[in-house]
């Protein structure tokens, strides 16, 4: 008789259970909190709708027999797996209301891919400001997760009226072509479905991926047919030059270069040409089935299981009032398989939790801030002040660095749950080496080859936002999520106002002057900090890669985990893992 089992079963099959059911009274008193969460969700939903409606109406595309980028994605991506990213990204406040590309992570034919396409409703997919940065974030994600990048190209090239915002510079719209070459070099395939007219930059966008599939109406070329005039020796346009331009345009009969009859029939750059838009997407699906991917069984340590508690509870547990503490383990219990968690050194560095959990049966690591007050902690304070949740102290920093290093050894992807107000400050903190230990944690992260994702549950503040694998961890952080309760700033607005104006207040008072003008400036600063730290602002500026409702967090964690284990570059045999043994002792 054959017998089969998951590896290291005594450690992973049944881990310690965490969390508890919310009591009736807890649910009752948290209803106002749910309303506050919903308010922010509504703001985000309205913004996303605005972005989706950017450019020409979808009906106009449909009336021409075409599909919008959203139609293409819906047809291409496996149902229920699409996890959009950068939906509101628009750091330079483009008049288009977006950066003209739509992207995220999802499954195609059962395999995870990073997927990006030009919004063909917005200036036929033109290069606009902020777009190249958006694309680079996405190519970096494919590189980090080692999964295919799928492009839906439909790119009219530079928005000529604003060429200075996209054309030149280190991270300009030419940089993605190098990124594509980099991905190819690393063995990460890029599948490209090509639609519409793609001249110049659009042409390189078309040619730079690994496998090219075209719609019959598509073309890719070094330059377009629209350049009918060329250089005017006068250096300006007068009536005579305008007339020549008009005649030239009227009489232009040429076809656009780089059509399917050239690049399928002649050069054979295109592997496939399809007479329908869906045909191109079917072609991508065919190629996705050929992409490298392990069966999940290879890396699973248990059968997948849902958390024991409702994800909707998260809206009740996480307080919208940023000054309120909560039980962080109650959050974790709603994210992990069967609400289980094997905690690493729970009695050391109490302000953070670290440990192993399962997501869809895969082993992963979690690190997060505890909340509340810790009397008698940290030791180095000698009782002068108590420890406060969200802050980092000596033991917690050592524990995180140690845990990250062990995760690197065991190849455990890490999910960070940030809600942090900073690292402890003052002479005692300096003597306790917190400055060096913070950077030591950064070093530990950088030393690993791990993928990590970060969720800023509420506060991402001061250097603590950096050291807990914020998006600044360029080589490890695959993506960062915010929630409807996220606030990201260097310090709270009131603290910043006090730091900026305290001396002036002293001077004004000593001089017998009216304090009102200074107070007005301070309050303006506080308001400004408030306005520029809210979830929609964080998403627009790229502080986070997406704002996600709290119950949706697990879906993104599943996407991150599944993608990470699809085709890992490095493997630790589960039965040789060290961390579970260290935890058990």
């Amino acid at each position: 008789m054959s017998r089969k089992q998951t590896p290291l079963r005594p450690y992973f099959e049944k881990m310690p259970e965490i969390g508890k059911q919310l009591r009736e009274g807890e649910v009752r008193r948290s209803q106002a909190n749910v309303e506050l969460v919903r308010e922010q969700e509504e703001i985000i939903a309205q913004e996303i709708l605005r972005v989706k409606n950017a450019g020409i109406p979808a009906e106009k595309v449909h009336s021409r027999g075409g599909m919008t980028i959203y139609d293409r994605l819906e047809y291409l991506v496996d149902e229920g797996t699409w996890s959009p990213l950068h939906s509101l990204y628009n750091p330079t406040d483009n008049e288009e209301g977006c950066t003209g590309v739509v992207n995220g992570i999802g499954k195609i034919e059962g395999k995870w891919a990073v997927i990006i396409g030009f919004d063909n409703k917005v200036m036929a997919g033109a290069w606009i400001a902020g777009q190249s940065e958006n694309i680079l974030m996405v190519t970096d994600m494919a590189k980090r997760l080692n999964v295919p990048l799928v492009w839906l190209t439909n790119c009219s090239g530079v928005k000529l009226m604003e060429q200075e915002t996209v054309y030149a510079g280190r991270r300009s719209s030419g940089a993605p072509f190098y990124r594509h070459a980099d991905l190819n070099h690393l063995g990460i395939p890029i599948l490209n479905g090509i639609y519409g007219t793609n001249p110049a930059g659009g042409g390189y966008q078309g040619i730079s991926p690994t496998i090219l599939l075209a719609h019959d109406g598509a073309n890719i070329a070094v330059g377009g047919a629209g350049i009918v005039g060329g250089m005017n020796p006068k250096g300006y346009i007068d009536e005579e030059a305008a007339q020549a331009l008009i005649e030239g345009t009227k009489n232009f009969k040429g076809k656009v270069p780089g059509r399917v009859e050239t690049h399928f029939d002649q050069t054979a750059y295109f592997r496939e040409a399809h007479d329908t838009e869906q045909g191109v997407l079917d072609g991508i699906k065919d190629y996705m089935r050929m992409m490298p991917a392990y069966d999940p069984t290879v890396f699973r340590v248990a059968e997948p299981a849902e958390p024991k508690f409702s994800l909707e509870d998260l809206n009740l547990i996480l307080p919208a009032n940023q000054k309120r503490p909560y039980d962080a383990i109650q959050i974790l219990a709603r994210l992990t398989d069967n609400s289980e968690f094997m905690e690493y050194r729970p009695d050391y560095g109490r302000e953070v939790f670290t440990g192993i959990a399962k997501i869809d049966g895969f082993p992963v690591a979690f690190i997060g801030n505890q909340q509340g007050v810790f009397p008698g902690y940290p030791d180095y304070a000698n009782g002068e002040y108590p420890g406060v949740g969200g802050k980092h102290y000596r033991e917690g920093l050592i524990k995180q660095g140690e845990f990250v290093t062990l995760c690197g050894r065991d190849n455990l992807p890490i999910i960070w749950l940030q809600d942090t107000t900073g690292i402890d400050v003052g002479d005692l903190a300096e003597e306790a080496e917190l400055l060096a230990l913070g950077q030591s944690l950064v070093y530990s992260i950088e030393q690993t080859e791990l993928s990590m994702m970060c969720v800023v549950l509420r506060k991402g503040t001061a250097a603590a936002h950096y050291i807990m694998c914020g998006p600044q961890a360029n080589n490890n952080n695959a993506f960062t999520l915010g929630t409807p309760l996220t606030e990201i700033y260097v310090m709270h607005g009131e603290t910043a106002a006090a730091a900026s104006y305290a001396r002036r207040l002293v001077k004004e008072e000593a001089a017998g002057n009216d304090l009102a003008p200074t107070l007005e400036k301070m309050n303006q600063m506080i308001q400004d900090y408030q306005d520029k730290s809210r979830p929609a602002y964080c998403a627009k500026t790229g502080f986070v890669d997406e704002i996600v409702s709290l119950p949706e967090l697990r879906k993104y964690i599943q996407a991150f985990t599944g993608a990470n284990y699809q085709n890992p570059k490095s493997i630790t045999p589960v039965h040789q893992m060290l961390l579970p043994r260290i935890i058990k002792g």
Partner: protein
Amino acid sequence: MPELIAPIAGNVWKILVAVGDKVELDDELVILEALKMETPIYCDDAGTVTEIKVKEGDAVNEDDVLIVID
């Protein structure tokens, strides 16, 4: 007679009930302010508020009795 105890030292920021009020398990009765945080104190049994031993603005120590419930 159940007593509601301050879990940490701090200032009484808000008192959300009055003597004679009927309260239920998990109702929020007092909010302490300390270390830039609000610490809500919840009712751990149903009953009637018979005595409030503090007023808003008072400084309290850890383990001080805040409210008595019958």
